[in-house]
């Protein structure tokens, strides 16, 4: 279709003539009516989705940029223009050590999730990809934590990990009493506890993705390798894993974006007292605490913008340099 974009299925008949000249006089009214009708349909079909999506996803971010330039407590329109002080000023977010800690914590969670969940999920997926009776049941059980609501997971682990709670009791009964710590109360430890809970919650998702990826690896390949005398271990390492590459890269992308924005589990497992020390804040919990609960809309908007720029920038970079091959331009404009 190199001619006008107006051509649609019904018009294929006059394809040849439409190419050279304008619409012929005899058919012009019916053609124009059809074209008009087509556009009405297109607009009617896409407009509701387009409007809601634009209004609630894109527009707020634009407002955030605007609000972030003001000191604004939320009554009336913002008037107290302070430029970029909410970002870089002496009391700006980027200069606040608590925010810096939150950002650092996010980075630790990103790296920790990738390094811990990745290998673990690959190992478990390869295990559950073997043929054995009851495999379907095991696959389902592994996925259960992912289905639970974040709130459920947060409340549950907070009770389990509380001082002298069931986790400590289990450790003691295993003779590991010396390992007992104040899991949620020790500022140096709490982030790693949170990382453990996040791993428990989201590992199932990684495993399910990898199992789906594994089901696409043709069995003939590993059979051929086996006939050539490769061991199970060699087959996984040299045949299966390389073919899982795209799946692993997409999982890493989703994990990274999720880790940068993590809120629910952190909010529920930790207390404000310990988050206030900078020990377990993330950018999102900081934003809700210092922006929403403190009713500092200008400052909170600045934090929103920073969080947005970091997440969106990371997503675009990853997309550009790592996922390019896998998605074939689905997410960015074709170049």
């Amino acid at each position, binding site marked *: 279709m190199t001619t006008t974009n107006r*051509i649609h*299925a019904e018009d294929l008949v006059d394809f040849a003539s439409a190419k050279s000249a304008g619409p012929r006089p005899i058919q012009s009214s019916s053609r124009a009516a059809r074209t008009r009708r087509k556009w009405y349909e297109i607009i009617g079909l896409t407009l509701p989705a387009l409007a809601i999506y634009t209004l609630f996803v894109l527009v707020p971010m634009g407002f955030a940029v605007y609000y972030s330039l003001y000191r604004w407590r939320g009554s009336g329109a913002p008037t107290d223009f302070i430029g970029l002080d909410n970002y870089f000023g002496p009391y700006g977010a980027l200069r606040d050590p608590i925010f810096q800690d939150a950002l650092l914590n996010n980075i630790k969670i990103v790296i920790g999730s990738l390094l811990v969940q990745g290998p673990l999920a690959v190992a478990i997926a390869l*295990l559950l990809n073997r043929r054995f009776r009851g495999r379907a049941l095991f696959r389902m059980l592994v996925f259960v934590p992912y289905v*639970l609501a974040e709130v*459920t997971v947060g409340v549950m682990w907070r009770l389990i990990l509380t001082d002298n709670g069931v986790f400590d009791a289990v450790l003691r009964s295993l003779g590991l009493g010396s390992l007992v710590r104040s899991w949620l109360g020790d500022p140096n430890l709490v982030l790693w506890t949170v990382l453990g809970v996040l791993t428990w919650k989201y590992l199932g998702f990684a495993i*399910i993705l990898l199992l789906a990826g594994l089901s696409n690896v043709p069995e003939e390949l590993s059979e051929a390798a086996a006939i050539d005398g490769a061991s*199970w271990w060699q087959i996984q390492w040299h045949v299966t894993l390389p073919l899982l590459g795209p799946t692993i890269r997409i999982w890493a992308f989703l994990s990274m974006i999720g880790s940068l*924005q993590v809120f629910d589990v952190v909010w529920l497992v930790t207390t404000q007292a310990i988050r206030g020390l900078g020990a377990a804040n993330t950018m999102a919990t900081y934003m809700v605490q210092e922006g929403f609960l403190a009713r500092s809309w200008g400052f909170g908007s600045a934090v929103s913008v920073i*969080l947005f720029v970091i997440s969106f920038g990371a997503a675009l970079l990853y997309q550009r340099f790592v996922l390019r091959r896998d998605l074939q331009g689905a997410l960015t404009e074709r170049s």
Partner: protein
Amino acid sequence: MATHAVALPRRRRRTNPWTSALTYGLALAVAGVCIAPVVYVILGGFRTAGQIAANPAGLPNPWVIDTYLRVISAGMFWQYVGNSAIVALGTTLGVVALGVCAAFALSRYRFRGREALYTYFVLGLLFPAAAGILPLYLLLRDLNLENTWWGVILPQVAYGLPLTIVILRPFLLAIPGELEDAAMIDGSTKLGFFWRILLPLSRPALVTVGVISFVSSWNAFLLPLLILHDTSLYTLPLGVQQFQGQYSSDTAAILAYTSLSMMPALLFFLFAERQIVGGLTGAVKG
């Protein structure tokens, strides 16, 4: 580094008993770690606070059903369940209806700017939801949607649309054009074809996106937390958090409440496992 766990060679057709025992052992261990906390919460609800204090890791002895009964009757548990169901159903309907219409236009019409429009929707997948939450709250406040269910439903629909369109469009594209031509020859309009033929044909894909948006709405926490202030409007996750705050000393009650609150999600998962798993993996593979 990754797969030191199961390093035994696999014989063709016949498995070595040791290999198979090792496989089962490891699979059991993994499943145990995933399930143990859930089982603890469910069992904990059958114990009294005294039992839990005396021995945190013990089994119920004797079994007590009172806590569960108390939680069900006392709190606003059922109201929260109902609220969650309304919000989740509203979200699902909105996402599926708007999503399938847009996906239909984006797949079965040719028009200028079609790919650009599609890219515009897909861009939403990269939009960090948490980052937008604060300005979103301000917008909803200005629209007088604060403290209403619409204030939760509409943004959830908006955030659900990109994934829905990304899943549905290839599906609709794959339905052969001959079907459409045949319908046209029989005198159907384009919209008639959409309504009478395409929609019934795409039911599996619609169920998948419906299930995904239902589950994510059912579990949502941050948006309802900022938008809903009246406890009578609370969804279940807010109820759980509120209950935990109110009864922080009564561990047994929190355990019972938490385990009741996860039952709907677990049951739903049991029935819709295929759609959830298939949808998630299908969406990621694009």
